[in-house]
């Protein structure tokens, strides 16, 4: 374990930025933290989290896949893939770190999404423990997310005056090497204290008792037709806010854009809340907002764990709790249809 003083953290950023693009949460003009490319003068935000999750760096909202041109009956394809450069995402919270595991299971299983895979290969994730979790946090509901000791290539702890680093992977070791001269070796006393402090707060969180035990693979029939869906979805506006701020939502649509000089085939995020989602030749397969609403939560709580060894498709980051225009969210859904709160 190594540490540096909080005051000198910008030196570390400078060092990393020499060789890699470095992204970290920076307060925007409206005071809200946004993952921003670090450059001299940008300060690491004290905010707990960003509105948009770090998923964007591996699975951007819009991504061009290829270009093609037709002339007469000929078609000419161009691979426009840009080889991803090495980059570092700094300050990722435990919940968001877990989201990469969830995304990996989708994008890195056969057939591998080579665009995503390439970015994962080139990206180093530096996580940071949550010293001040919010009332909307409920990562404890899901197994193996530890806000006191997040995963990632490197784990960091930020205390009053210092930042502590610990490498978890080979990429992490390389990262540590790079900042070696700016950090000093230390023991884990301070980190242990910080962990205890966080653990104490976690026990006070209002959603600490939320349990996902009622959900999981094989529960489709249990929940699919419960009458509560009507009530829960009654005032859903059908916007895509929850899906677009969600670190684990991974649906996209592939579209063609005719530039006049050829066609760009690109993909962009899609939302199961949208009426046009997965529209097929026969029309839409989920016609009502209730069905679309149900799909999203069933996917997170039942379908995904069913296909992925019981791992839930939610990480408890709380973004949807904060951002849904009508304050409807997965917690309300779990409580309503999941029966009892964990005692």
């Amino acid at each position, binding site marked *: 374990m190594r540490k540096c003083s909080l005051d000198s953290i910008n030196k570390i950023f400078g060092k990393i930025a020499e060789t890699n693009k470095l992204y970290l949460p920076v307060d925007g003009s409206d005071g809200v933290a946004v993952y921003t490319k670090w450059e001299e003068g940008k300060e690491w935000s004290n905010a707990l989290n960003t509105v948009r999750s770090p998923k964007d760096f591996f699975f951007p909202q819009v991504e061009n896949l290829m270009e093609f041109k*037709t*002339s*007469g009956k000929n078609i000419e394809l161009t691979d426009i893939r840009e080889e991803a450069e090495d980059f570092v995402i700094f300050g990722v919270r435990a919940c968001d770190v877990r989201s990469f595991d969830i995304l990996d299971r989708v994008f890195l299983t056969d057939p591998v999404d080579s665009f995503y895979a390439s970015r994962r290969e080139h990206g180093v994730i530096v996580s940071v423990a949550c010293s001040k979790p919010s009332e909307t946090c409920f990562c404890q509901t899901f197994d193996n997310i530890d806000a006191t000791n997040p995963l990632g290539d490197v784990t960091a702890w930020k205390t009053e005056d210092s930042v502590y680093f610990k490498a978890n992977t080979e990429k992490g070791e390389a990262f540590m090497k790079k900042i070696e001269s700016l950090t000093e070796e230390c023991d884990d006393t301070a980190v242990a204290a910080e962990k205890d402090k966080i653990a104490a707060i976690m026990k006070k969180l209002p959603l600490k008792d939320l349990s996902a035990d009622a959900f999981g693979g094989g529960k489709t029939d249990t929940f699919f037709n419960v009458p509560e869906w009507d009530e829960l979805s009654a005032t859903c506006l059908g916007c895509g806010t929850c899906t677009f701020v969600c670190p684990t939502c991974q649906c996209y649509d592939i579209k063609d854009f*005719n530039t*006049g*000089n050829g066609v760009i085939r690109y993909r962009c995020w899609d939302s199961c809340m949208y009426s046009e989602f997965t529209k097929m030749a026969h029309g839409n397969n989920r*016609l*009502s907002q209730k*069905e679309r609403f149900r799909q999203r939560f069933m996917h997170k709580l039942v379908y995904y764990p069913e296909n992925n060894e019981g791992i839930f498709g939610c990480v408890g980051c709380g973004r949807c709790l904060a951002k849904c225009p009508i304050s409807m969210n997965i917690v309300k859904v779990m409580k309503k249809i999941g029966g009892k709160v964990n005692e």
Partner: protein
Amino acid sequence: MQRVGVFVCWCGSNIAGTVDVAAVAEALKNEPGVVFSTDYQYMCSQAGQDIIKNAIAEHNLTGIVVCSCSPRMHEATFRKTAAAAGLNPYMVEIANIREQCSWVHKDMTTGTEKAIILGKAAVAKVNLNTPLTPGESPVTKRALVIGGGIAGIQTALDIADAGFPVDIVETKPTIGGKMAQLDKTFPTLDCAACILTPKMVDVAQNEKIRIFSYSEVEEVGGFVGNFDVKIKKKARYVKEDICTGCGACVDKCPMKKNPNEFNLGMDNRPAIYIPFAQAVPKVATIDPNACNMLKNGKCGLCARVCAAGAIDYTQKDEIIEEKYGAIVVATGFNPISMEKFDEFAYNQSKDVITSLEFERLTNAAGPTAGHLERPSDGKSPKTIVFVQCVGSRCDACSEKGKEYCSKICCMYTAKHAMLTRDKYPDTDVYVFYIDVRTPGKNFDEFYRRAVEEFGVKYIKGMVGKVTPEGDKLKVQASDLLSNKQLHIDADLVVLAAAIEPDKSARPLATMLTASMDTNDFFTEAHPKLRPVESPTAGVFLSGACQGPKDIPETVSQAGAAASKVIGLLAKDKLTGNPCVAHSNELMCNGCSSCERVCPYGAITYEDKEFRMPNRTTKIRRVASVNPAVCQGCGACTVACPSGAMDLKGFANSQIIAEVDAICK
């Protein structure tokens, strides 16, 4: 996917001179959907049309693009060609590579590049065209003629002759118009009244014709075949059906000193009057601004002397509503005001007059009973100067005059000069001219007779100024051929004033939604091929409202307009423009935005039941467009927020395709 054929026209050298037509045809070959592309000298010719027809059959074309002149010129032609070959006529698009390309660009490269882009845009559009079928609407078999001059009279007579009822609306108390004020007519010199008044009587006696004299068109609604017109019949305070036109009231009326409009104010008429002896209808009219009874409630003399009891001081304006299948505009002309021509002293001397005033001065029924007398002192003029082109042929930015040639002045001036010399051989008659324009049957011969037989002095040059001095008019003029400045002491100066459309034409055009040129002459649907039709369907043009004309031309145009009207009224049904708006009910919100902007009231709403998910239904209010009433402006398409309203033939997708093609 369409199978598109592209046909590039050379238009002789009009297009081929600045556009490499072969290159255009070649370039368009590679556009999506294009399966055939060629070029030819004259696509609009029979041979050119045959190329199109053959290609449609041979290549099984589903759409064609003709790169040629403006669609305003030959779109209809090529639509017919397509139809003849079995293709829906609305599967034709025109790329305007003449008016908007070869004629405005001088350089071959530029012209060719642009022509290709315009062609691509047309191909992009036609790829999205769908076959359209025009709707049908019934035809009201009655025509309206606005204006009762010789143009209106002839049109009405010809239409009535074919058996269709016609109404004439005339603002004056009598029909007859300008021609009734004329003395003789060129080049035959027959008396205007002798040839006009029998026609007026014919109109009066024709059972198919109704005359609304002293009336104006108030409002026009509807569309071709189905116009709804409101006509205001102004109160004349005389019961038209009872008045016998005996004239007793006119004789007895004490309010005698009112300028007589018919004689251009050169003498007076009573407050109750009949404009002239042969007026039709021959009915008295009370001038409410002059009648003491109407103004102050004192007098009532005319009512007392009227044996028939036709006087009715309580008469009110009356609104008549009638339906018409066709409307003919025959609003005629007026001489322009001479007020601004200070140099000719029109305002300073009574002896400077216009040609129309001269006409009344020489007319046997005029203020001087046909004796040529000076308006100022009644003396016979010994030297008369005629000035041509007063206010005609002016610069476009002139505030005084008009840019166009008034066409009739050369001939009537020759007539006036000749008649003066004929009746008063001791009078010196000078005519100052810029050019003498006599293109007409027997016109030049007429002019030469004035010079050679009657000794009228034609001087090439212009009058620069007229100065009244004593009882003379000092005329300073140039004689260009002898390179001299002339100074003539004249007794009378006659100005050949330019003519302009009647002032009522502009508001009428607005009511009719018929277009006008900057001079307020009505525009034709095509200057050569459709000269008597306005671009607004069902509105036809007769006489000088369309441009300056003499009587023979007016009469022939009147007949032509009548034949177009007859052709329209003979149909039982009209096929409409299929490029109308239509609403996609699935997307319509029923919000009424479209209804509010529709100028024709073509959009109505109905509650419809829609299938919803899970076997439920929902009743929603949705818009529907009446295709017979819709004129296809597209205002609704933009007012509609959901994009449910679209326009056939000019669909959102089609216009966007054109934008994309152009901006490539």
